[in-house]
């Protein structure tokens, strides 16, 4: 059975993701939050612009920090999802290969309101290229600042794409490891870890944002 993106989006969208009396939304074995995308965007981009005013070294450090936020998000959110009962119920029956794990988690992402993610190229264990239509980061940037002179702004997505590859090919999330500090360091600080690069961004005039993850 091939991984069916539309079926995953429909199934995940049908899950009852609502808060309880503790003010939390337990789902996928973790906690979700309904968060204003604009809020996160504006903090990210204000921080980026402030760093850019201070110079290239500061700007580079800020971009790395914002991408690392994407690594953390991928690690806990995507890692948690891929070890959850919801995953076992919805996605796992469609999985036949390790590459299907990539397509499966991208199907779940497409139910989260982060834009429309599409696998453009996947070479197992080597490279993943994802294009994103209507990414919330580029949409937010364009709305607040207009077209950017240089560079992309989809930092969380960039860290997310690298995180997917690290979880599936570098750290083998299929064996259900504990999502702890040691595993995180192994995934993102090893010599063979995947790193993400945004090679095209709507905020810089592209039609779709494009992110490539390769081993560093």
């Amino acid at each position, binding site marked *: 059975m091939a991984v069916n993106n539309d079926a995953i989006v429909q199934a995940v969208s*049908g*899950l009852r993701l609502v808060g309880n*009396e*503790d003010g*939390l939304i337990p789902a996928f074995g973790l*906690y979700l939050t309904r968060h204003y995308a604009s809020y996160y965007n504006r903090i990210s981009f204000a921080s980026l612009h402030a760093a850019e005013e201070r110079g290239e070294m500061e700007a580079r450090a800020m971009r790395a920090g914002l991408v690392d936020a994407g690594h953390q998000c991928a690690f806990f959110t995507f890692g948690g999802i891929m070890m959850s009962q919801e995953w*076992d*119920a919805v996605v796992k029956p469609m999985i036949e290969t390790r590459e299907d794990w990539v397509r499966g988690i991208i199907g779940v992402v497409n139910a989260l309101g982060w834009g429309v993610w599409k696998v453009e190229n996947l070479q197992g264990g080597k490279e993943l290229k994802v294009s994103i239509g209507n990414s919330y980061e580029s949409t937010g940037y364009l709305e607040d600042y207009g077209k950017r002179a240089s560079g992309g702004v989809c930092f969380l997505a960039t860290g997310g794409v690298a995180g997917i590859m690290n979880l599936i090919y570098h750290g083998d999330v299929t064996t259900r490891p504990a999502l702890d500090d040691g595993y995180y360091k192994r995934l993102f600080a090893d010599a063979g870890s995947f790193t993400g690069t945004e090679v095209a961004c709507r905020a810089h005039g592209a039609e779709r944002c494009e992110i490539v993850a390769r081993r560093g």
Partner: protein
Amino acid sequence: MTALGVTLLVQRDCLGGERVVELQLPRPVRLEDLDVVEGVVHREVLTSLPRPFFRLDVPGRFLLTGIVSDPRLRFTVRMAARERAVELALETAQRMVAT
């Protein structure tokens, strides 16, 4: 493992608040096992999914999730009951197994 064959798989804290307890029953969960869980105010069995995922919400105590025909259960225990998380989960699981 308890006398009825229930095994504790995972227990972890989330954000210092609710507590997640994962258990494995000695046999797969059956639909009728869900009937013995007390205090359920919202019951959902998503039979349209490739595997039938269920979710039972017991306010003030826990959210119980799993898959019918799979032996694993996950209890996400509310903050109000977090000190009794493992006890509550084991009690409920053993009642399910005993049916």
